[in-house]
């Protein structure tokens, strides 16, 4: 049980399970492409981590693995202590429904659906009743500053507003871990900054945030930066994790 180590005293002396833990993780695609190659990574609860790297570096693969949408070909991925490779589809789905929130570069809002309904769909697979879903969707939209856009459909919203709807959908279920894949990639600078502010705010409220970005400025604002290149972690601003990794490998 060597993985259950002390995590830098963040929680005093209580042993805690990290939000995310990669142990020697590789992801080899069927064609033989090594998207990830022996990555060790540990993200504590409540951290905000920016994953940076050029395109094709494997940073999206990291996010897919954390999001349990993909499974490693080697090594172990643990999300809140659950070995992703060992869970069946139902358990993974339950984990995603209750503990994970996703924000995508392209928003993925359903066409012609009102913002409140789209956000409420974020709770659909948690089994909450429709009325509760709607109430919480209104709350979530209010939190991201779109209280007056509840009945708007995607084409009536600006890009920044759409991304905020998507964030509301991601956090409506109060996930412990928010995963954002280039959330500002399709936005202008001002809206992008607003979206990043929102992510920081969520982080301050206790959500663990993992954000992929190739925007240096956004990345620089994150408390921790992990740089991925050619399927490996080449730099990690959190020395604890880096030393842990070196210690093991």
């Amino acid at each position, binding site marked *: *049980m060597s*993985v*259950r180590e002390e995590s830098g005293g*963040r*929680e005093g002396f*209580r042993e*805690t*399970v990290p939000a995310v833990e990669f142990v020697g993780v590789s992801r080899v695609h069927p064609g033989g492409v090594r998207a990830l190659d022996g990555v060790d990574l540990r993200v504590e*609860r*409540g951290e905000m981590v920016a994953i940076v790297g050029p395109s094709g570096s494997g940073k*999206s693969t990291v*996010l*897919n693995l954390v*999001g349990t*949408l*993909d499974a490693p070909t080697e090594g172990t991925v643990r*999300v*809140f*202590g*659950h*070995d992703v490779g*060992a*869970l069946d*589809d*139902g*358990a*993974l*789905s*339950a*984990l*995603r*429904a*209750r*503990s*994970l929130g*996703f924000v*995508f570069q*392209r928003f*993925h809002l*359903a066409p*012609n*659906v009102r913002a409140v309904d789209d956000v409420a*769909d974020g709770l*659909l*697979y*948690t*089994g909450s009743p*429709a009325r509760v879903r709607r109430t919480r969707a209104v709350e979530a939209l209010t*939190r991201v500053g779109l209280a007056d856009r509840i009945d708007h459909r995607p084409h009536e919203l600006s890009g920044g507003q759409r991304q905020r709807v998507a964030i509301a*959908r991601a*956090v409506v279920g*109060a996930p*412990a871990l928010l995963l954002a*894949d280039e959330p500002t*990639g399709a936005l202008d600078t001002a809206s992008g900054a607003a979206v990043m502010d929102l992510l920081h*705010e*969520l982080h301050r*409220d*206790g*959500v663990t945030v993992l954000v992929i970005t190739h925007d240096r400025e956004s990345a620089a604002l994150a408390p921790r930066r992990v740089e991925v290149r050619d399927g490996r972690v080449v730099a990690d601003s959190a020395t604890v994790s880096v030393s842990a990794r070196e210690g093991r490998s």
Partner: protein
Amino acid sequence: MIGRGKGEGRTARRGGAKDHGTRPGNEDRTAPRGRRGSRSAGRDRLRPARLSPLDHLRTGASGLRARPTRVVLSALGIAIGIAAMVSVVGISASGRADLEATLARLGTDLITVAPGSTLFGGNATLPEEARGRIDRMPEVERTARVESVGGANVYRSDLVPKAESGGIGVYGVDVDLLDTLRAETALGEWFNGATADHPAVVLGASAAERLGVTRITPDTLVLIGDVYFAVVGVLEPVELAPELDNAALVGQGAAEELLGATGDASMVYVRVDPERISEVRELIGRNANPERPNEVEVSRPSDALAAGQAADRTLQGLLLGLGGVALLVGGVGVANTMVISVLERRGEIGLRRALGATRGAIRVQFLVEAMALSLLGGVFGVALGAVVTLVFALVRGWPFALPWWAGVGAVAATVAIGAVAGLLPALRAAAQHPIGALSAD
């Protein structure tokens, strides 16, 4: 701002963790904190939530709402097939209802007795006493006889070429005939005691049409043989005795006197007690001609009407088959739409998986969508089929009849078709790898 407990792992110590004993740290619950406390019981295991049937329905329908044109077009295929089948069933049911109404009006208690052929193939005749003996049977209520008068043709005037006889037959009839057949006159009136012995004629419906008799005046005459007869009446079509439609009916007395009729009955129409009709059918031949009962032909005209209806069955079967083919094509259309839909909606599928949809939930979503699509077509098709039936029945003057099982069966069939058509696309959708939506390329 976001109301959430700040304490890291505030719930970490809550509850023992016996679920996945093999893994470390599973006592630290992954579920979010704070107000989710009420769900703590469910956290011990990562078990996906079940969607309510209504949520399944809503989710399945959401895919249809987003693409109305495609939905209408592919539902139309199903609708056409269902409409074809429903209208075939409806039209046949309406026709049957009409027949039943007709038979109820005309009665199924009419039997005809006619001379058949002798053992050697010659034409038999009914004995003179035949009618009297039939009359005396206790089950018989009333009778009427007619005699076909050979060699007499009917013309509007003597200017009409002899060849254009129109095939109109001439019958010498009793005054009782009208009541026995429950026939009705369209114009003028039936014979009374006086006109039966005079050169007066009542025309059958199609005979009147051929002769161009559309109204009756004192000098409306037709030429029968070489005698002018005054037209006193025109009959409505006689369903139970269609042989009288293209005929000129003259009183038996006049027929014998002016047209050389012999007095042999060529047909006896018999109304019997409806309860005992089958016994009468057995006995009546022997009563009509005790010496040679085999030379008597007994039939029941209402059976012939029913048989005519039955003959339509073959055509109905063919039409139903065609409807079935249309339905099949409609089902293929739904399957096609669903396959394309699944291909197009990789992003949505990925997103839903990210939101926590199990493969099962995705499968159900697409299956429900296919079934709803098909059902939509089915309901529309039933409505369309009912309208077609209604119009057809109105045009033919039939009562409208559509059996309930046709509607229910059609709807059930479309749901089944939708399920079959949606199965493969739904399996494909569920098997799809979810990262399609995540990749930001």
